[in-house]
C-alpha cells in the first residue's frame, strides 16, 4: 500500500519537474538538439540538476540493505554493450528529434489534450507493444524461458531474458 502512495507522489513530482524544466515543450527539446543552429542549452541544465541530486542520493540510498517499503532494490546489473542497446538508443534518438517528445513528457502532456500528444502517446505505446511481441517471438524461438518461469524455478541459471526484464 505504501509503495503505491510513494509511486504516485514520485510520478507527480516527476511531472511537475518536467513541466518546470521545459521538457514538455517539443520546440524547446528540438532547440536543445539543434546544436549547429539556434542552440538552446536549457535541457543540459535539466540533466545537470537531476544528476546533481540523484547521483549522491543514489550512493547514500544504496548503503541501506533494502528500500523502506520493499524487500529489495531492483537495479539493472548489466554492464555489457550489445546491438540492441545501440540500435534501440539510435531509433529512440531519431524519434526524439522528429517529435521533440520522450516518454515522460509525452505522458505528462496527455492532460493538455493537444492533438500532437494524442497522436504521439498511442503510437509510443504501440511501438512498445511491438517490441514486446518481437521479444516474445525471439524468446519462443531461442527457447529462453520467461523471467516469470525463472523466478518460480530457482534451479535455472539467470537467462538473458531475466536480465533484459530489468530496464534502466
Amino acid at each position, binding site marked *: 500500500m505504501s509503495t503505491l502512495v510513494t509511486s504516485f507522489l514520485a510520478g507527480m513530482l516527476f511531472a511537475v519537474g518536467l513541466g518546470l524544466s521545459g521538457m514538455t515543450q517539443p520546440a524547446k527539446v528540438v532547440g536543445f538538439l539543434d*546544436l549547429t543552429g539556434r542552440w538552446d542549452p536549457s535541457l543540459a541544465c535539466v540533466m545537470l540538476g537531476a544528476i546533481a541530486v540523484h547521483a549522491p542520493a543514489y550512493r547514500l540510498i544504496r548503503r541501506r540493505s533494502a528500500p523502506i517499503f520493499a524487500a529489495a532494490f531492483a537495479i539493472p546489473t548489466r554492464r555489457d554493450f550489445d546491438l540492441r542497446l545501440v540500435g534501440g538508443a539510435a531509433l529512440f534518438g531519431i524519434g526524439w528529434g522528429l517529435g521533440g517528445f520522450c516518454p515522460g513528457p509525452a505522458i505528462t502532456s496527455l492532460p493538455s489534450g493537444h492533438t500532437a500528444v494524442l497522436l504521439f502517446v498511442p503510437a509510443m505505446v504501440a511501438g512498445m507493444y511491438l517490441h514486446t511481441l518481437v521479444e516474445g517471438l525471439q524468446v519462443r524461438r531461442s527457447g529462453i524461458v520467461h523471467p516469470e518461469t525463472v523466478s518460480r524455478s530457482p534451479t535455472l541459471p539467470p537467462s538473458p531474458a531475466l536480465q533484459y526484464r530489468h530496464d534502466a
Partner: protein
Amino acid sequence: MENFTPGASFLGGVLIGLSASLLLLCNGKIAGISGILGGLLRPVRDDTLWRVFFIAGLLAGGAILRLVSPQVFDIALTRSGEVFLLAGLLVGFGARLGSGCTSGHGVCGISRLSPRSLLATLIFMTAGIVTVYIVNTFFGGAL
C-alpha cells in the same frame, strides 16, 4: 540562445532527481519512464500496480500543470500528425529495445555511472542532433 532558461530547467531537473531518489529509497525502483510503462504491456504479478500509480501520478502532475501554467504544454513545433505518429513509434520501440529512455539512461543510469546508460545517452543524443540537423537543413525545420 534567446530561449535559454537555465534556472527553471535546473530546478525542474532537481525535482526530477528528487522523484527518482524518492522512488529508489521507498520502493527500490528505477524511475525510467519507458521501463515503468513498458512493464505494463507484459504484466508480472506483484509488479504492476505501482507502475499504474506512478503513471497516474504523472497524469495528475500534468493535470495540475495544465491548471497552473498551461503554457508549459506549448507545442510550437511544425510537424504533421503523421510525423508525430512515426516519432511515437520510434520512441516507444527504441526505448524498449535499448532498455531505457532519457530518464532511465540519461538521469538514473548516468547517476550510477552505468556504462550502458552512458553509451545509450551518447547515442540517442547524437541521433537526435543528426535528425534535427537533417530536418532543419533539408526540410526547412518543418515536416
